[in-house]
């Protein structure tokens, strides 16, 4: 059981690492902002941020200075990742909205403000979920993921209609749905984990139901993000053939 619980974490780590690096390489080629933001978001919150936080615990008692340095880098990565996702949601879904712009900018101020607070007042030591800067940062992290999931789901409902008329690629349409599921699983999993920490005091890697919940949400997020951005050939064939069947059924 103990080993199995890590499957979700490992799957999420590997998928987020692969997708994040691929998207950043894409950004280097296209020089476009959305892929840069998506790459920073996926890598920052996932493998670099969360991964480093988990890895750092090995050094908590043996090498406290290394532990603190790793936590500082991890918190910086999470803040950058969450800010990148806020900006992604603004720039991609509502580029002309002053409200979305204000939300993204305020979130950025909040994220980096809480990072400075954690450095000045706690020296980046083990984040207590009840500590204000930690709670605030986690809430913003959850917020950027759930906002992104909602936008992506709403856009998918439009894309479905376009696919029926041959106005959109069914694989791209499915990418919106998978990203919505992946971002929701990551955001909701983080929220459940946070509440679990507040109630039980156990962290996401201390074992118990909080860890099982976080790992399961991580597994769902990993599968959905993989299907969105690195779908296997059989899955792409399935999506295309299903769309063709639906179109044939509609025109019959």
């Amino acid at each position, binding site marked *: 059981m103990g080993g199995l619980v890590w499957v979700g974490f490992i799957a999420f780590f590997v998928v987020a690492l692969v997708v994040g*690096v*691929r*998207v950043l*390489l*894409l950004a280097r*080629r*296209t020089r*476009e902002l*959305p*892929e840069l933001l*998506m790459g920073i978001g996926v890598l920052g919150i996932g493998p670099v941020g969360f991964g480093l936080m988990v890895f750092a615990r090995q050094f908590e008692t043996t090498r406290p200075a290394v532990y603190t340095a790793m936590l500082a880098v991890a918190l910086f990565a999470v803040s950058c990742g969450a800010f990148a996702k806020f900006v992604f949601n603004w720039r*991609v*879904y509502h*580029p*002309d909205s002053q409200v979305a712009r204000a939300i993204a900018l305020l979130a950025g101020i909040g994220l980096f403000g809480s990072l400075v607070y954690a450095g000045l007042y706690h020296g980046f030591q083990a984040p207590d979920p009840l500590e204000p800067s930690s709670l605030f940062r986690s809430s913003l992290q959850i917020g950027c993921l759930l906002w992104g999931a909602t*936008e992506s789901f709403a*856009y998918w*409902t*439009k*894309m*479905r*209609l*376009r696919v029926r*008329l*041959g*106005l*959109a*690629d069914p*694989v*791209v349409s499915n*990418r*919106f749905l998978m*990203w919505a599921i992946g971002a929701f699983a990551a955001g909701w999993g983080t929220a459940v984990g946070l509440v679990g920490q507040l109630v039980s005091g156990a962290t996401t890697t201390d074992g118990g139901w909080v860890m099982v919940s976080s790992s399961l949400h991580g597994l769902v997020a990993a599968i959905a993000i993989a299907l*969105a*951005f*690195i*779908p296997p050939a059989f899955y792409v064939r399935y999506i295309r053939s299903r769309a063709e069947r639906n179109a044939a059924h509609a025109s019959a």
Partner: protein
Amino acid sequence: MADAPAFDWMCSRLEQDTSLDRLEARGTVRLALKSAGLDARSVTPDQLKVVIDKVLEAELTARGIADAGSLCAGFVTALASEGQQLAMAGGSETPDAVFSRLGGGS
């Protein structure tokens, strides 16, 4: 954000060629776009052509417009000649264009 030139063009043509007034024409086109999953602010001439072909005729018929089929055929022909001028110049990139690229990988 302003409505797309293709949307404004379609509304003007409906006003000119049917008994619909400005408000009715714009509402009809908005409904047709909505049922196709499109938006008045970002619709392109190519997308509009499909909407005219597959959605608008039924919307016009439902509003009692006579001979909606040949009317729509006329819109498609006119759009083919004016489409290039109506193409959005420098508009914001749509989310589907972004997500299409994001699947490209390295």
